[in-house]
């Protein structure tokens, strides 16, 4: 029997969802026009007035918001409520430049918590469960989001934050945690530590919610086997609210978007044109009832597909497939779309560090992909045959993930340059 946190909303007929979205959207636009000078200026610059927006069908007339817009107006970009009404901030990691700060009123926190509660229930959690939140707490939205969702659901919540694996395992065992929430790479690490310590039979875990990082189906199966759980994906961005913008159900074939709070579009990343359902393109979100930090047509740069196909869980919310990567990182190699994040996920799951370099070239009119990976002390052995096997395994895993052959080169540690912010990951030598 499928359980829902907000059954009426989550299983609402599609036409009714659209009606609800329309109503909320018009209210949200009024709020933005009146109270968000940054976006109003953008509309006016584009020659659009609030009077041009008569229904959700007019959303295509509205200008996009990009990360650059948010950075440009740092630290109060898109703020639409007086600070006295705001109760909290969260912030992006700032790895690609200036941090983006998101503001929340109590109402905004409540709706975010609700989204995370829905994700927990979709993963099989009830108030009887013990939920271990091992995402980082602080400016990062991971810890706060699942913590809030678990409170809302009424489950006993263990706000562990990340790291200190011994303590994580001690609480997991002593308090009988049944649901774990963390990044997939940390889940894989926990699974390994549990195996090393031989304490698997002392665990009561049944489900895990993992997000904030790219991970493959293979990694999902490994985590599920290692922890003896069902592993669920969750998606979100600080700019939209945090984790829980969309969440996976028992079918595990994509994440349901909380459509009563967020309206999703797929666009052509080059032209900005809205694409029909089922097309691959850049995911764009509009908040429908946020107060402090409303976002209208925010370009996530995540490349994915939306589908309305009926889901066996009974939820009618549109589903998004796991994003394959960020649009500005995408490479086309031998006609196949390749995202560095996919390669990174394979490396992490094979026990390498996420420090790598991709070299794309064209030899005899055919594209080649070379992946330089640093040897690590943990991976190194005195046996050349074992290293060759490791290399072969990595080539196989890359082929399975990307669909094309990549030549792997093991290089000396720290030989791949680390720059201040992001390392130079891709060298494209093709002259096209």
């Amino acid at each position: 029997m499928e359980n829902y946190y907000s059954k009426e909303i989550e299983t609402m007929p599609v036409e009714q969802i659209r009606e609800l979205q329309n109503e909320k959207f018009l209210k949200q636009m009024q709020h933005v026009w009146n109270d968000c000078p940054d976006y109003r200026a953008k509309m006016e610059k584009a020659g659009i007035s609030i009077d041009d927006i008569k229904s959700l069908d007019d959303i295509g007339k509205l200008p996009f918001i990009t990360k650059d817009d948010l950075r440009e107006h740092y630290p109060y970009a898109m703020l639409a409520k007086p600070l006295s009404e705001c109760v909290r901030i969260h912030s992006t990691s700032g790895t690609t430049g200036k941090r983006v700060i998101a503001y929340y009123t109590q109402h905004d926190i409540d709706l975010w918590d609700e989204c995370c509660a829905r994700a927990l229930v979709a993963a099989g959690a009830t108030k009887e469960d013990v939920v271990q939140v091992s995402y980082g707490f602080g400016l990062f939205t991971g810890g706060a989001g699942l913590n809030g969702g678990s409170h809302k659901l009424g489950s006993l919540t263990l706000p562990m934050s990340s790291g200190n694996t011994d303590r994580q395992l001690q609480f997991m065992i002593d308090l009988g945690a049944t649901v774990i929430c963390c990044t997939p790479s940390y889940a894989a690490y926990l699974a390994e530590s549990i195996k090393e310590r031989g304490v698997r039979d002392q665990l009561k875990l049944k489900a895990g919610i993992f997000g904030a990082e790219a991970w493959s189906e293979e990694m999902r199966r490994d985590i599920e086997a290692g922890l003896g759980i069902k592993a669920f994906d969750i998606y979100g961005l600080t700019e939209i609210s945090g984790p829980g913008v969309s969440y996976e159900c028992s079918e595990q074939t994509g994440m349901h978007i909380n459509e009563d709070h967020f309206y999703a579009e797929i666009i052509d990343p080059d032209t900005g044109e809205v694409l029909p359902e089922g097309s691959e393109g850049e995911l764009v979100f509009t908040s429908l009832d946020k107060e402090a930090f409303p976002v209208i047509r925010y370009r996530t740069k995540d490349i994915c597909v939306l589908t309305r196909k009926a889901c066996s869980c009974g939820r009618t919310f549109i589903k998004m497939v796991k994003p394959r990567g960020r649009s500005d990182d995408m490479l086309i190699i031998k006609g196949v779309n390749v995202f560095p994040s996919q390669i990174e996920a394979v490396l992490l799951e094979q026990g390498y560090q996420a420090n790598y370099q991709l070299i794309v070239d064209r030899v005899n009119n055919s594209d080649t992909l070379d992946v330089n990976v640093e040897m690590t002390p943990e991976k190194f052995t005195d046996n050349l045959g074992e290293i060759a096997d490791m290399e072969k395994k990595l080539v196989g895993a890359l082929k399975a993930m990307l669909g094309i052959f990549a030549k792997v080169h093991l290089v000396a540690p720290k030989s791949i340059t680390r720059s201040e912010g992001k390392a130079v990951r891709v060298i494209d030598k093709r002259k096209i």
Partner: protein
Amino acid sequence: MTVKQISVFLENRYGQLHEITNILAEAGVDLKALNIAETTDYGIVRILVDDVPKATDVLIGAGCVISVNPVQVIAVPNKSGGLNEVLGKIAEANIDIEYMYSTVDGKDDVAKLVFKVDKPEELEKIL
């Protein structure tokens, strides 16, 4: 005799081996034996030194990826058929040799060879 061998991961490019010998020379470590196993992209340099803790310290400090493993050093008569005789005994005892190489640490009448085998205790026993 069992001794500790240091294996160092080496990328296949100009000057890499020299970097390693330079690190050891600057630390005053004496090389007793050296062997290289290689593929087109990378190799493993295996060394025996007079001061293993010091050598591992300076290599790790310089960012090298290393592993330390026990190997057998066997004295072989330095005469025609000397090695042949030793290998014969090893084959007879069904001991598998993973790799072997020679050291510079010999005298006129014996050559010292390094063996990596699957059954080190038995090797000690038969020789």
